[in-house]
């Protein structure tokens, strides 16, 4: 009986269905916010536990957090450059942590055991709204970074080696958020679907390698997203000579 209900729970594969929340005229995808709040809550609890008692000789969680911090700093420094990476490190780090926690949380926690009236819980990054939001934030960030660092000279970047580049550079401003958001969305959704379909077909053992592959992709996607965001910002603040 229990096994049976487990099976039906696992096997329910819903694509493109959402749990709608209606606030006034605004409609929201409730399942995205629910999972993101749970995961971000866990992240914040983890981080506050790790930073509660900071010591010069790090112990336990502090070690892990310092490693994470160092990792993010290296990422930001190599992509953005020594001069301004400090300003952007929290943003890049937040992107990385948010995407990583969302992806892994979506892959590791058996959300489907929790039944919703409509739609199902899953990685927040498997929703196109989340990834477009992140990508647009990245776009705004690199424009802001370029303009605040170089003023109007930022637009020299558009004609940089030659003015022939102008249409391509303008096109890039649209393709950058598009590729960022669809890459993340597609990878995570595809991973969830593959695991879902495999679980539906063969519920035991066989999906496990695919789940591991999913964890790998999830981590890689987080790294790619953060690295590209940092790279775009670095490109915007770079001085041409």
């Amino acid at each position: 009986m229990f096994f049976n209900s487990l099976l039906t729970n696992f096997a329910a594969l819903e694509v493109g269905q959402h749990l709608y929340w209606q606030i006034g005229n605004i409609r929201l995808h409730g399942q995205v916010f629910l999972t993101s709040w749970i995961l971000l809550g866990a992240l914040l609890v983890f981080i506050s536990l790790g930073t509660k008692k900071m010591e010069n000789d790090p112990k336990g969680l502090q070690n892990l957090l310092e490693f994470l911090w160092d990792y993010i700093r290296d990422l930001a420094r190599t992509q953005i450059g020594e001069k301004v990476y400090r300003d952007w490190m929290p943003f890049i780090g937040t992107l990385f942590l948010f995407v990583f926690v969302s992806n892994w949380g979506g892959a590791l926690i058996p959300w489907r055991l929790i039944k919703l009236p409509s739609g199902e819980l899953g990685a927040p990054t498997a929703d196109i709204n989340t990834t477009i939001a992140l990508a647009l934030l990245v776009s705004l960030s690199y424009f802001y970074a370029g303009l605040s660092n170089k003023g109007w000279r930022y637009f020299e970047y558009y004609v940089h080696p030659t003015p022939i580049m102008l249409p391509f550079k303008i096109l890039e401003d649209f393709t950058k958020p598009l590729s960022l958001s669809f890459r993340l969305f597609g990878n995570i959704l595809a991973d969830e679907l593959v695991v879902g379909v495999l679980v539906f077909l063969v519920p035991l053992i066989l999906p496990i390698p695919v789940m591991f592959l999913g964890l790998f992709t999830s981590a890689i996607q987080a790294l790619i997203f953060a690295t590209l965001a940092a790279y775009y910002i670095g490109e915007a603040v770079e001085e041409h000579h």
Partner: protein
Amino acid sequence: MLAFNFFGATEGGLFDINATLPLMAIQVVALTYILNSLFFKPVGNVVEKREKFVSNNIIQAKNKLSEVKKLEADLLTQLQSARSEAQRIVSEAENESDKLYKEALELANNEANASKEKARLEIESQTSAARDQLSKQADDLSTLIVNRLILEK
């Protein structure tokens, strides 16, 4: 659950874009500020303080090492000069003793030669004296023999 209170109609599709987008953006911006004050700043402070501490220690250690090397070189030159000084003193003393030895040897040789000469002279004089006496006695004896022969005749 909270979710059930907000339960609404189902529509949608994969590319259903709605107010979730701006709200998620605001949520991520808020998360950036929260993580900055909760994670990036405090951890950064600790890590950078430690990095500064370590690099300061390394600089200090390097300074000390160079000081030690300087002192070592200093000591080495001192040691070398002391060694050459000692060598000089030893060779001087050797020369001195050599000279003294030679002088003493010469003195002794001279003395020995002198006394040998003296002895030789004495021996010579005594020899000649003895020879004189002997020849005198031979004369006396010959005279005596001659006289006796003459007297007997």
